């Protein structure tokens, strides 16, 4: 099998007249964390449901692990774990019993079931409350239990819909850490979110959704160059005479802006840090700090939607 685990080609979903998802194409590679980003109602969840075979595809085609989710939903669902937006459990049952029920639906044998459940609960730090009813769980604990279900299932792909929404910062960090853990296990992750700064830190590539279409797709760096237009922004903090002129002469630098006393901001076509450092030293300056600014997804997103006049529902 090749290294593409999810291949969506021209996915379209129409609900009597209205188009929820319009000609969406993307691929997810093995072991990659792919983010579907965009405002609420942009078609992220519908796209996910189509990939899982939980809703019909109006046009286009999807292959998940080489299977067609419409014709072979069981083969897809056996190897794909899904954590829905604000996941629900049976509140009157314990965490362990909830997982037992799922394990029976998956069809694990008795011994395999108990071992997997215990292991999964331990990995999400819920082993101590495994016997408590889920009704007493906080939102973060529920999300983690949902993740435990995916871990238990031993999947090739984990699809997480808004996994961090409604969580406090601490719980968000923990959850993102667990998502990175999935990647370490070789699991491909498809996650959707409208919270950009958090998601940026885990995603290898992202697709920006707008009104049911993918507006932009690529790594965060690529999108930054595409939208913010300007290559690299390098911050230089150095003391010396006439540094601004010297920095401006570095090949590749387009503009130099003094942002404070002894602080400069360079906009360049490439990563000019080595040359900038050399220039400062050659001019007899004292270099204190040199950093390249990663484009922030938030900035890309805001700029993009400003330029394209989108309804901003997030």
């Amino acid at each position, binding site marked *: 099998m090749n290294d593409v685990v999810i291949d969506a080609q021209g996915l379209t979903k129409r609900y009597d007249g209205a188009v929820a998802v319009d000609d969406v194409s993307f691929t997810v590679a093995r072991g990659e964390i792919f983010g579907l980003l965009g405002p609420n109602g942009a078609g992220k*969840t*519908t796209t996910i*449901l189509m990939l*899982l075979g*939980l*809703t019909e595809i109006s046009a286009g085609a999807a292959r998940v692990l080489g299977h067609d989710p419409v*014709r*072979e*939903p*069981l*083969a897809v*669902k*056996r190897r*794909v*774990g*899904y*954590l*829905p937006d*604000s*996941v*629900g*459990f*049976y*509140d009157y049952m314990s965490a362990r019993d909830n997982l037992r*029920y*799922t394990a*029976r*639906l*998956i*069809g694990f044998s008795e011994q395999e079931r108990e071992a997997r459940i215990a292991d999964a609960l331990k990995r999400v730090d819920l082993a101590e409350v495994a016997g408590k009813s889920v009704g007493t769980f906080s939102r973060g604990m529920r999300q983690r239990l*949902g993740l435990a*279900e995916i871990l238990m299932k031993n999947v090739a792909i984990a699809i997480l819909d808004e996994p961090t929404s409604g969580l406090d910062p601490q719980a968000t960090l923990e959850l993102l850490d667990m998502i990175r853990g999935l990647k370490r296990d070789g699991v491909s992750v498809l996650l959707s979110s409208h919270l950009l700064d958090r998601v940026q830190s885990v995603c290898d590539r992202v697709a920006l959704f707008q009104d049911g279409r993918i507006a932009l797709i690529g790594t965060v760096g690529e999108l930054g160059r595409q939208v913010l237009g300007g290559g690299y922004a390098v911050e230089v903090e150095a003391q010396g005479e006439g540094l601004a002129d010297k920095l401006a002469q570095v090949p590749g630098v387009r503009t130099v802006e003094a942002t404070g006393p002894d602080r400069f901001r360079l906009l360049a076509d490439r990563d000019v840090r080595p040359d900038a450092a050399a220039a400062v030293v050659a001019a007899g300056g004292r270099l204190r700090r040199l950093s390249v600014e990663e484009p922030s997804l938030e900035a890309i997103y805001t700029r993009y939607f400003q330029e394209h006049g989108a309804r901003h529902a997030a």
Partner: protein
Amino acid sequence: MRREGTPWRGVGAVFLKELSDHLTGARMFVLEWLVVLTAIAAVYGSIQQIKDATAEDPFLFLRLFTQAREPLPSFASLLSFLVPLVAIGLGFDLVNSEHSRRTLSRILSQPIYRDALLFGKFLAGLATITISLVALWLLVIGLGLLMLGLAPSGEEIARALMMLIVTIFYAGVWLALAMLLSTVFRSPATAALVALGLWLFLTILWPLLSPALADAVGARDITSAEDLLSVLSVRQGFARVSPSALFGEIVSVVLDPSVRSTQQPMLAALGLALIERGAIPGAPLPFLQSVLLVWGQIVGLIAATILLFVAGYVVFQRQEVRA
């Protein structure tokens, strides 16, 4: 285009989980005690009545189920009234609660078809009702044995068993109806209200309304016995819209060997008797003949269950998973 795998995958898991939910739930506990207490009271009343009666009756034991003593109705009519309530109580939130708990998409993302969820839930509901009805049935038989001091004959047991089976089918109709409503309406409260409304309409209002409606359609001057019978059969046809009417007809025939026609109770209410040519009035009908007499009604109950289940199934298959 065939889909892969079997729709039965996962039915067992759903069935066991739902069954344990029902059996441990407070709701079933309340419903069960409601039925058991009223049924015991009805049976106790009928036992008193039977003891007072002096007439010879070869099928005395069956009177346990049909004999009413004011102010309580008979055990059989009590079942026809309360079994729907139990079925509705178990069924009105089977599907929509999965939506409101937000568990549906998580469960359906497991390697099972939607069919399994619906089948499992329906079968678990029916199994729960079956367990309680069997317990109740044994209780009544036991009570009869103890208090009448009279052992039932083989035929009486066969007839009583037949009633038990028919009651389970009857419960199936209402369970399928409740499940259909729980699929159509997203709010459990709405589904419950509509189900209870239909229950009251079909068990209480329809028996009062249907004769008037029937007469509006098939009215004619009654000059002969044939006229009377045809008016009665039109009325009967209308009444049969309600599953309770079907159940009532089946029970009246199955539990009373002297009933030779489903119209006999209606005639008796008018003070008339049906005398067939060549038949001895009041002579008991063999068990299989009784069953044959109401075979149509029994099949009707099963067909209604299947139709309602299929309707719910279609609605559920077409429903979006998203809340």
